[in-house]
Structure formats: C-alpha cells, structure tokens
C-alpha cells in the first residue's frame, strides 16, 4: 500500500499524511482532500461554536448595546452613559457592590481552613478517607437545599439558638438572618461551609502527587512541623492555592445569587443585597432591562479581569509543567 500512495501523492511532500488519508479512496477524490482537511476541523467545531455564539456571543454583544440605551416611548434609544451614571448614585447598587467585596473576606479564611484540614488528612490520620468523603459532601449539595436548611437552623427560635441557650450562652442567641448586622456574616459562614470542602479535596489531591522524599528529606534535616508546612507544603501547593483563590474570588463576586436568594432575599433592608440579585430584581421584577444590562457589563468587566488573571496563572503553570 505505501508504494501506491507515494506514487499518487508525488507532489505532496508530507507522505505520511497521504498514507493516513489515502487508504482506499478512489482517485478522483484526491484533489479535494486538501480542502477537506482544512474544512474538517470546523465541522467538528461547528455545533460548539453555534451553541457558544448563541449563549455567550450574542448576549454579550447585545448586553453592551442595551446598557447604553433606555426605553423611551416604547423604543430603545441611545442615551450614552446615563444608565451607568444612575447606577453610581444608586444606594442599593453601591450597597450590593460593598457586600460582594465583603464576601471576598471569606477567601483567605477558606484557604486557611482548607489548608489545615488537607494537611491533617494528608498525614493519614485514622479514618482520613472517610473524612474526605464527608468534608466534600457539602460542596455537592444544592445551595437551594442547604440555604433553606440553614435558614431554619439560624431562625431566632431555631436549633442553633436553642443549643446556645442550653449551654448557657444566651447572649450569643442572636437573630442571625433577621438583623442587618449579622445577616451578611451568617451568609459568609454558610458560603464557607459549602465551599471549603472543594479546597480540602483540591489541596489533598495535589499533596498526594508530591514526592514523599521531599517530606522525608525535610524531616531528616530536623524540620519541625511548622517548618515542614511552611517550607515544603505551601510552596508545593502554590499553584493550586492560587487557583482556588482566584476561583473563590470570582465566586464571591459573581456566583452567590443562590445563597442570597434562598436565605435572605437581599434583606433585611438590603443588608445582604449583592450585584447578581440586583440584576435579577432590576431585570425581572422592576422591568429595568437597561439598568440590569449596565450592571451586567460591570460584572463582566470585573470577572473578565479575573479570567485574564487565571489564564495568566494557568499559562504559567503549564509552562512550568512542560519544563
């Protein structure tokens, strides 16, 4: 067979490709093969491209246009930056932005807790596999379900306060979700509860791929526990810690809708309002599609920055892996 293909593929320098494609195809089709080879990848990509253009491409373009328009007497008219200017005078929006930024505080807390737990599990304490299973479970449960359960736990007459009263900590039995002061921190607790398991499993998986000798060598050199963690564990985990941090920051800024919607609905008194809920309310309750679009554009810019950051980190990691 090779001799036959090499004859017919005389003016094709890449003989191996000819063999690949050649095979049993009849001669008349040969001249069209080059065209076919160029076209073929796009046929495989086409369904994905169509879906992505529909779900991401078109909405993102139309979003930007909508954000510069207002509906005046039934027609969308360009109004320049009016929507954006209105936003920055809107107390509810500013409160939402502030709350999203407050939520970012949970990220270092999550990293710390996940790191400690992952290290303990990695030290193969008795039952570590079982603990890994249970610690990861919250990450899988629907936020809607979890949020509802927690809103019963944190009720004024809920199970948490009953417990606190029982052990004599009456002064701590607060209206966790019903007061403007504690609603956001309570929400933060639930977010940490749900997301920290992801960090634990992520860190643990990375730790298990580190060569044991590295730890053994440090131990032989007489490093104590803290030195071991600080000098071996943390540097070895640097890339996954970075990844987890970036993903969590993005989560806090733009993926917390479910928590807020189910647990507080933004209240009491907008104390847990977040930008996503603001978009939802503006777009679908107050029929202010243009304002909602302007907020979406801002949200997109912020996440865009972090996407860029993540891609840079990823590029750095894969380069390091190759070398």
């Amino acid at each position, binding site marked *: 067979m090779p001799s036959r293909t090499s004859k017919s593929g005389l003016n094709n320098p890449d003989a191996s490709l000819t*063999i690949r494609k050649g095979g049993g195809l009849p001669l008349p089709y040969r001249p069209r093969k080059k065209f076919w080879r160029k076209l073929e990848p796009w046929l495989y990509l086409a369904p994905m491209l169509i*879906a992505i253009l529909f779900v991401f491409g078109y909405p993102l373009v139309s979003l930007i246009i909508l954000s510069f328009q207002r509906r005046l007497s039934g027609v969308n008219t360009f109004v320049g930056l009016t929507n954006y200017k209105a936003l920055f005078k809107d107390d509810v929006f500013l409160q939402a932005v502030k709350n999203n930024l407050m939520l970012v505080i949970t990220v270092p807390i999550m990293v710390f807790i996940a790191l400690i*737990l992952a290290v303990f599990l990695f030290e193969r304490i008795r039952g570590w596999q079982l603990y890994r299973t249970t610690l990861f479970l919250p990450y899988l449960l*629907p936020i809607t379900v979890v949020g509802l359960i927690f809103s*019963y736990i944190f009720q004024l007459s809920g199970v948490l306060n009953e417990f606190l009263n029982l052990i004599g900590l009456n002064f701590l039995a607060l209206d966790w979700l019903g007061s403007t002061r504690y609603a956001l921190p309570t929400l933060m607790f639930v977010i940490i509860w749900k997301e920290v398991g992801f960090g634990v499993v992520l860190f643990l998986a990375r730790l298990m791929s580190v060569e044991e000798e590295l730890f053994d060598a440090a131990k032989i050199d007489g490093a104590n526990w803290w030195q071991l963690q600080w000098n071996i564990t943390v540097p070895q985990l640097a890339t996954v810690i970075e990844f987890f941090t970036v993903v969590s920051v993005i989560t806090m800024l733009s993926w917390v809708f479910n928590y807020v919607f189910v647990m507080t609905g933004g209240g009491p008194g907008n104390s847990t309002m977040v930008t996503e809920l603001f978009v939802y309310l503006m777009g679908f309750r107050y029929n202010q599609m243009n304002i909602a679009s302007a907020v979406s554009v801002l*949200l997109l810019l912020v996440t865009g920055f972090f996407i860029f950051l993540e891609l840079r980190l990823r590029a750095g990691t894969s380069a390091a892996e190759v070398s």
Partner: protein
Amino acid sequence: MSAGARIQRGIAILVRQGSVILATIISLFPVYFMLVSSFKTKSEYIQNKWGLPSSLYLNNFNTALAGEKFFIRFANSAILTALSVGVSLVIACLAAYAFARMEFPGKDTLFNLVLSLMVVPPVVMVVPLFVSMVRWGLVNTYQGTSIIYIGLLLPFSVYMMTNFFRTIPREIIEASRIDGCTNLGVFWRIMMPLSAPAVITLVVVNALWVWNELLIALIFMQKDSMKTLMVGIAAMRSRNYVDIPATMAGLLIATIPIVIVYLFGQRYFIRGLTGGAVK
C-alpha cells in the same frame, strides 16, 4: 520513645482528630438536621429540634409530595438534566476531538477563549437571553432552557474532554488510520470507547450542576407546570414556613439522588470537580 515524646505525639493526634472531627460534625449537621426533622411531627419538632425522632412519622413525605407538585418538578428537573447533559456531551466531544487531534489556524486562541468562558457568571447573559427567548417563544420550554444549559456546560466539558483526548497515544490513532479509518471512524470507534471514564466523570459533574441550578430555571421556567425542583424548593421558604418537617421531607427527597450517586461514584465527583487544577 520517652514519656515526653509519647505525650507530645498523643497531643498531636488529639489536635488533628479533634479539628477534623469538629469540621466533620459541622459539615454533616445540616444533613443530619434535615434527616431527623423530616420524620418528626410539627409539635415534636418544636419540642425536640436536634434529637432523634421518637417514631418515624412518614406523613411529611405525603405532604411534601402532594403539596408542592413534587413529581412534576422532579420530572422537569430530570428532563432538563438529561437533555442538557446528553447533547452537550456529544457537542463537547466533537469539538474536543478537533482541538486534541486536528490542526487548524487559530486553534490555541479559540481554545483559550472557550476556556475563559468557564468563569463568566450566567447572570450576565440572562437579560439578553430572556429577550431573545421571548421573541422566539422559547420561554417555558425544555428545548429553550436546555440550549442555555448546553452553552453553559460546554466550556468545561470541552476543556475536560480535550485534555483527556490528548492523553490517548497518537500511535493508536495512526494505526487505525492506516487500517483505513476516517476521522469520524477514529473518533467513534477508538476515542469514545477509550474515554469512558472521562465521559462518566463529565456526565456526573454536569448532571449535578444542572440539577442544582437555580437562576436560569427561575427565569426561563416560570410557568407553574414547568418549574424545576430547585425553583419549587426556593419557593417553599415563604409558603411552607410553618410546616418545617414537611419542607425538610421535600428537601430530603430532592437531595437523596445526589447523595446516593456521590457515595457510589465518589471518585468521579472528586476527579471531575478537581480535574484540571491538579495534574
């Protein structure tokens, strides 16, 4: 080992076990709370919030199933999940094959672009999507909503399948090419059977995502007969506030499929959700 060293070791184990057990209790308490509450009567719940139920009161499940149109919601969620996960899998595998095993101009740029869409929050696209869905009469339909889910699932799916396809040795493909296999033949007869573990992982993770999704379902499945389970649950907060045990029973039914699948296919979840970040 000296006595001092032994004590020190004991303390070290105690600290580790102590903190991990505490974390586990906190992790599991809401699940435990849901479980025990769903078997209590209303009055028993008020008297005894965290203890085990004195008897298994099953009426809550009746209330939950009848009161919230549970079966319709359950079916809606299941249909949407199956449709979106199935279609997105096929589309993602085709695209991943092109990314992993074909050459075309702009490949890396396109791949990175698709990859970066993974973190775009869905809430951003919701307003324009709603406008177009209304225009085409696709609101409150399975196909309309699953198109959105398919699009949202694609970036991660393409990323994962591409990475997996790249690990399949080139020699296998070359060999089957020489045997006269076309690209589609290689894809269907060689790549897909070899990718079974990756496909299972992807299906599990994507199904979980669609099953748990709230925002899109809330906006695009508004009609009562089309609502998903999560939308129904989110609405329980205001409606069933007085009957907490019945609500808990409903939550339990909605959660049980996930927990069972997780306990049996744990490695698929862990591999799928941490995949890409850990090599």
